[in-house]
C-alpha cells in the first residue's frame, strides 16, 4: 500500500494528466451536446500541454537565463540548475494549434446549429434521417 502511495505521489504530474485526459474522453464519448464534446476535446489537448510542461520542470531549478552573461567563461553551467525550456516553447505552438482547433470546432457548431436548430447529437441524427 505504501509503495502504491509512493508511486502515486512521486509521479503525480503524470497522474494529473491521465485523469484530465480521461475526463476529456469521457465528455467526448458520453455527452450528446456538441459544445460539451468540444470542451472535452479541449480538455484532452490541455492535458497534453500540461504533460509537456511538467516534463520540463525540475525541483529547485530556475529559469534558463545565465545571469553572468558573456563573462561566463570561468563559470561552469550546470544543466541541473535550470529547467528545460524546450517543452515549454513547443507548447506555445501547441496552444496556438489548440486555439485554432477550438475556433474551427465552434464555427462548425454554429453552422450546425443554423442548419438543424439544435446542438444535441441524437436530434441532429433524426433530422438528417428525416431529410
Amino acid at each position, binding site marked *: 500500500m505504501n509503495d502504491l502511495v509512493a508511486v502515486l505521489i512521486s509521479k503525480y504530474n503524470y497522474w494529473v494528466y491521465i485523469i484530465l485526459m480521461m475526463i476529456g474522453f469521457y465528455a*467526448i464519448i458520453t455527452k450528446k451536446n456538441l459544445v460539451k464534446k468540444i470542451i472535452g476535446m479541449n480538455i484532452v489537448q490541455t492535458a*497534453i500541454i500540461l504533460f*509537456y510542461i511538467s*516534463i520540463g520542470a525540475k525541483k529547485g531549478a530556475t529559469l534558463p537565463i545565465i545571469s553572468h552573461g558573456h563573462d561566463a567563461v570561468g563559470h561552469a553551467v550546470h544543466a541541473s540548475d535550470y529547467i528545460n525550456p524546450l517543452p515549454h516553447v513547443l507548447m506555445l*505552438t501547441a496552444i496556438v494549434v489548440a486555439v*485554432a482547433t477550438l475556433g*474551427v*470546432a465552434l464555427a462548425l457548431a454554429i453552422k450546425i446549429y443554423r442548419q438543424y436548430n439544435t446542438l444535441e447529437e441524437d436530434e441532429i441524427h433524426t433530422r438528417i434521417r428525416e431529410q
Partner: protein
Amino acid sequence: MIQQLPAIIVVFPLVMSFFVVVTGLWSKRICFPLVVTAISVCVLSAGIILSSVINQGPIHYWLGGWQPPWGIEYFVDHLNAFMLVAVSLLSLLVAVHSKRSVEQELPEKRSQFWSLFLLLITGLLGITITGDMFNLFVLLEVASLSGYALIAMGQKKAVFASFRYLVMGTIGASWYLLGVGYLYIITGSLNIANLSELLPHMYQSKTVLVGFAFILVGIGIKMALFPLHAWLPDAYTYAPSAVSTTVAPLMTKVMAYVLIRVIFSVFKPYFSIEEIPATTILAWMAAVAIVVGSIYAIAQTNLKKMLSYSVVAQIGYIALGIGLANRFGLTGAVLHIFNEIITKGCVFAVAGAVVYKKSACNTRELENLYRKMPFTMLAFTVGAFSMIGIPPTLGFFSKLYLILGSIDAKQWVFVGILLFSSILNGVYFFRIIQIASFETPMPDYSRGTPYEKVPMDEAPLSMIIPMQIMAAGILIAGIFSADIVSTVIQYVIPEGF
C-alpha cells in the same frame, strides 16, 4: 537558390495562401492564376529536388542554419522526394480540374476556398519534407484544420461530417503529440535522424513502448486504418467535389508515408518486427480493412461514397505492405501509395466532373454515361482497371509486389485476401461500368433505330485534360514501374531486408 528549394517548397505556397485572401477582396478572378503559379513553383522545385536526390544523394537542409539536434532539419531522401513530386503534381492537376466546379459550387467563397486549398497543400508538402517530429505535428494540424474547413464548405450533411472528422482527427493528432512527448522524455531529441541513433539502446524501456503505441494509433486515426476509419466516408462524400478530389488521394496517403517513416526510420525495423509484433498486428488489421472496406463499397449506390469506402480498402493494401515488412512488401506499399495518389485522383476527378454536369452522382445519374461523357468515362475506365489491378496499369504492379511479399513472408492467408479483394474491387467497379455503358431502357430491336439517340454532354476542357493526364499517367507509370522501383524505391528499403 537551388540550395534553398526545400524551404521554398513549403514557404512559397504558405505566403501565397495569404496573398490569395487579400487579393480575393479586390478581385476574385485573380485567385486561380495565383494558386496555379504557387503550385507550379512547388512542382518545379519538387522535380529539381528529386533529380538532385537521385544524382547526389539525400539533402539535409537546416532551417535558419541551426544544426540538427537543436534546430529544425528538412531531410529529403528518395522516399520524400518521390512523395513531394507526386503530391505537388497531383495537386496541380486537381487545381486545374477544380476551377470550374468551384465556380459552380462555391461562387461566393472562391478566394477563401483557394486560400485554404493552398494551406492544405502547404501542410501536406511540409509533412512530407520535414525531418522533425514536432514540426511534423504542426504541419499535420495545418493540413488537417484547412481540411476540416474545406470539407465543411460542402453540401448540407458536410458540416456534421466535418465536425465528426474534427473531433476524431484532433484525438489522433493529440495522441501523436503525446507519443512524441514520451520519445522526447527518454531521448531529449525531436530530430528523426537523431532519434533513430539514440533509441536502439532504449528499446526495452516501457516509455518507448508507450510512445510508439500512441504514435501508431494517432497515425492510424489520421490515415483511417480500418477500425479507426469511421470519420472518412461521410466527410469525403459530402465535401465539395473539388475538395474530395484533393483530400481523398493525398491526406490519408501522406499519413501512410508518415507511418513508413516512423516504423522504418525513427525506429529501426527490427523493433517493430521482433521486439514487439507491431507489424504483424498491422498486417492483420490491414487484411480486415481490405475485405470490410471492399464489402462496404459494394453496398453503396452513390459513386463518391463507394470511392470513399474504396479509400479505406486501399489504405489496407498500403498498411499490409508495411506490415509484411520485407523487400517486396515495402516496395509494393510505396508503389501502391503512388498508385493510390494518381488513381484515386483520377476516379474522384471523374466523380467531380459527373457532379458538375448532373449535380449528383448516384446510380441514376450514371446511366448512359459512356455516350454522354465518353472522354470522362475513358479516364474512369483506366482508373477502375488500375483499382482492380488489370495489367498494364500501375495498380497491377503494386498488387503484384504485395502478393510477392505475402508469398515471401509465407502468409498464404494474405495472398488469398489480396486475390479475393481484386474480385470484390471488380464487382463494384464493373457494376459502375455496366450501369454507365448499357442502354436503359434496353435497346428495342423491333424498331428501325434500336438505340435511342443520346446527345453528347461532355465536361469542360479544363476538367477533361487533367483527367486524361492522370489516366495516361496510370498507364505510363505502370509500363515503367520497373524503372520507378530501380531508380527510387529500392533505396527506400532499409538495410537487411
